[in-house]
């Protein structure tokens, strides 16, 4: 049985209150307060409270249709590009309200990069893919640009595989390489946060492993929020885990948010324990 919506949302508020003292050393990058999301008249997500900590990997897990991707796409305000999407509530990025009227969406998205479910390299060369984001904001000299492209490709663990074919089409790479190219492209603009929307769901196990290793290395430089349907992946890569689920009105809710270790061993909510143990639905 699922807990009633009231108990679940109020408990996640309590959870958050108890969470904060546990991690005094890290600042929240994102402070999320009472966020709801609507597709037309349908409420997809209700009353989410969460803090996302700097330099940590936060995993978002839950059954399909529970609003995990919807939630992720609120953080860089890309979900609202689709028509009739409306977001209520408060989201602060480093203390600044991202829904403020004076916010520059292009600058926001530059700080909050995103990796998508299916690798989406642009129809241009590997080099141009990585240089694309840099070029839209800065006019660099050729050597400086070369260096920035190389460093982004190195950070994405792709440099050694593509250094001799930088001017070939990005579409000619394998799926896993394409996804790492997309990561390099996102890293090239030096974001503070990287949102990953099921980045491995279209990849084979070996390519998945490479991306997971990459995530471990990247958290030295930035904060990562990763949506995944793979619980082992969440357990392997993240420090914090948020469990989303739907209530009987089919509205997405944050059920529980805690240290990953705690979620997977001694979660407080019965529905979290059931989901983590694979006894869900």
């Amino acid at each position, binding site marked *: 049985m699922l807990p009633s919506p009231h108990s679940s949302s109020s408990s996640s508020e309590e959870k958050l209150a108890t969470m904060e003292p546990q991690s005094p050393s890290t600042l929240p990058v994102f402070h999320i307060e009472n966020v709801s999301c609507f597709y037309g008249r349908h409420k997809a997500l209700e009353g989410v409270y969460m803090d996302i900590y700097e330099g940590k990997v936060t995993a978002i897990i839950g059954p399909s249709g529970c609003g995990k991707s919807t939630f992720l796409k609120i953080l*860089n305000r*890309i979900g609202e*590009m*689709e*028509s009739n999407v409306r977001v209520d509530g408060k989201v602060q990025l480093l203390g600044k309200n991202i829904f403020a009227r004076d916010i520059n969406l*292009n*600058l*926001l*998205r*530059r700080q909050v*990069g*995103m990796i*998508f*479910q*299916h690798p*989406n*390299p*642009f*129809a*241009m060369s590997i080099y141009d893919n990585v240089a*694309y*984001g840099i070029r*839209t*904001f800065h006019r660099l000299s050729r050597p400086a640009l070369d260096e920035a492209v190389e460093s982004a490709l190195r950070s994405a663990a792709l440099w050694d595989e593509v250094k001799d074919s930088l001017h070939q089409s990005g*579409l000619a790479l394998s799926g896993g390489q394409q996804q790492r190219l*997309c990561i390099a*492209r*996102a890293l090239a*603009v030096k974001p503070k946060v990287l949102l990953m929307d099921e980045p491995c769901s279209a990849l084979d196990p070996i390519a998945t492993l490479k991306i997971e290793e990459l995530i471990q290395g990247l958290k030295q430089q930035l904060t990562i929020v990763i949506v995944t349907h793979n619980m082992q992946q969440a357990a392997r890569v993240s420090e914090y885990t948020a469990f989303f689920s739907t209530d009987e009105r089919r509205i997405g809710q944050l059920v529980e948010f805690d240290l990953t270790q705690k979620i997977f061993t001694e979660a407080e909510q019965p529905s979290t324990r059931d989901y983590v143990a694979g006894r869900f639905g």
Partner: protein
Amino acid sequence: MGFAVAPSTESSSLLTSSSTDDSLENAGKLPFLRTLLGDGGFKSLTFVAALIAGAVPFFVVALISRDAWPAIAKFGLPFLWEQDWNIDESIYGALPYLFGSLVSAFIALVLALPIGVAIAIVTSERVLPPWVQIPIAFLVELIAAIPSVIIGLWGVFVFTPAINPFQEFLYARFGWLPIFNTQPFGSSMLVAGIILAIMILPTIAAISREAFLAISADLRNGAFALGATQWETIIFVTMPAAISGILGGATLGLGRALGETMAVTMVIGNVAGIDFSLLSPGSTIPSILANQFSEALDPLHIGALMYLALVLFLITLGVNSLAIFMIRFLSRNA
């Protein structure tokens, strides 16, 4: 228990009925159509229909070539670059018509391509709300439904008089340019090109729109997620991904412009000759075919017209094949 037994009796009855003469007797009682067109009959019927459809282009080429033969035998390939077309002296050359066809179609393409791509962007990208986009896309596609003779009538009685002051202006102001150095009097290559541009606009817009719509939302979002603006996304990310569809649409439009007859014949002036001024009247292959066919009696004259038709057919066949190739195969790889 009874249920478990039933299948075994059924299967045994099936076995016996198919192994005895009963089944053959039953076949005789089948409905007439069923015996006539079993699956095999239906297959052969569709195969024959497909074969006939596929044979039509070859049949057309064969017939045109047969009637064109007197001219092909007499003039050979030089027909393509001879300028004279004199019925009394039985001298025929295709160049003025070839030139007129290519120039008018090229003007149409230059004018229609940017506007068509703009329409495609406005009606497919998230620039305008859907309740504006869908009617615009529908209305543009509706242009293709206007019979060309109506566009021709509109061209003669409305558009040509309206545009003539502009042609006068071009002559007065830019007459020093070779492309505007003749006195305009209404009908001209330029007017024909503009009319053609209107006619091929829906083709280019619709196919480019399809190409834009086929691009996954993730690709656009990938650019937005890097902080790109909508225009940067469209011009540097979406358009390169849609380029094969756009060029395919442009090529298909070019093919249509080359073959268009009625509206062009009505506004181009039908003067044979090669003049580089766009303000001077001209003629195209379809326009001379439409103008002279009813009065051609001499087999050589008919042959020359048929030869022209064959040349036009080969050009449009090539252009359209190229377009289909670009739309089908190149966009799949993108």
